[in-house]
């Protein structure tokens, strides 16, 4: 169910992305930060579902609020002439790697168990 909706949503998003007009260059940097924040949220959601402590409210609010705050910080950085978005990117990407690590270990464990010769780490 979850995988199906993910695929459908992604395909629809890509299709719509090709249909609607492109955004101005000055806005694209905010969108880029928002994308990184959203990616972080998605990986965080997957990791938490693996850890069985997935909370829909936390996930949805994290997805939107993180993206918006990242954009606001980028804007503030622009005003102050400080590259605050770098800090946001470092935090988000660092967390992304953490979550990816959790996901990787989970599937590694699963595969090793399936082959019946798994070694727990």
């Amino acid at each position, binding site marked *: *169910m*979850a995988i*199906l*909706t*993910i695929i*459908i*949503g*992604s*395909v*629809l*998003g*890509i299709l*719509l*992305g*090709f249909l*609607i007009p*492109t*955004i101005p*260059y000055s806005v*694209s*940097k905010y*969108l*880029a930060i*928002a*994308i990184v924040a*959203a*990616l972080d*949220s*998605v990986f965080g*959601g997957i990791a938490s*579902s693996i850890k069985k402590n*997935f909370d*829909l409210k936390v*996930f*949805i609010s994290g*997805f939107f609020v993180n993206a918006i705050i990242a954009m606001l910080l980028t804007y503030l950085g622009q005003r102050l002439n400080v*590259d605050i978005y770098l800090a946001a990117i470092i935090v988000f990407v660092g967390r992304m790697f953490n979550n990816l690590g959790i996901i990787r270990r989970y599937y590694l464990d699963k595969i090793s168990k399936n082959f019946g010769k798994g070694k727990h780490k």
Partner: protein
Amino acid sequence: MKDKKIGISLGIVCFILALALTLQIRTMTIENSIVSQTFANDELKDNLLQWKEKYEKAVEQLDSSNKELDVIRKSASTNASNAEQKTAKIKENNMLLGLTNVEGEGVVVELADGKSSSLVLDASNLLIHDGNLREIVNELSNAGAEAIEINGQRIVNSTYITCAGNVILVNGEKISSPCTIKAIGQQERIVRSSRKSRRNITST
């Protein structure tokens, strides 16, 4: 039920994420930007500074050009009054040079060779000579004639009246009897002055 909710929300989230990603990638492809945002910004700032500098220079140039224009305008307005005087002067000079037609009162002197007669010993005395013409022209101009012509030849500064064989040359043009000398000036004065003149102009 909970799974369904999670699935739908994940689908929406993925939809938004995919949409944003596609848009961003398309935008970046169109902008053809491979440098980082900071670099792009720096480049733009450099460009901006260069343009500002150019703009300031252009403004300075405009100011100095305007000043020059003012100076030229001022001199042009003073020139305009000078120009009238100059035009009058040129007209006068043209008249003196014989470049313009002159109209007005004046006198006409007609000369012709004398008729041959057995009483005259020297036939040369009967003819008009270049010297005669010169004398008349001198008399007329002394009497205040402004413009003189002999048979259509205007007498100017460079005019020469000379004799070549049996013809007279005025300005290089052949003149022969009868000669008509026209002089423009104060009629009365010219007539009186030529009468007063002691010189015996001609005896034809």
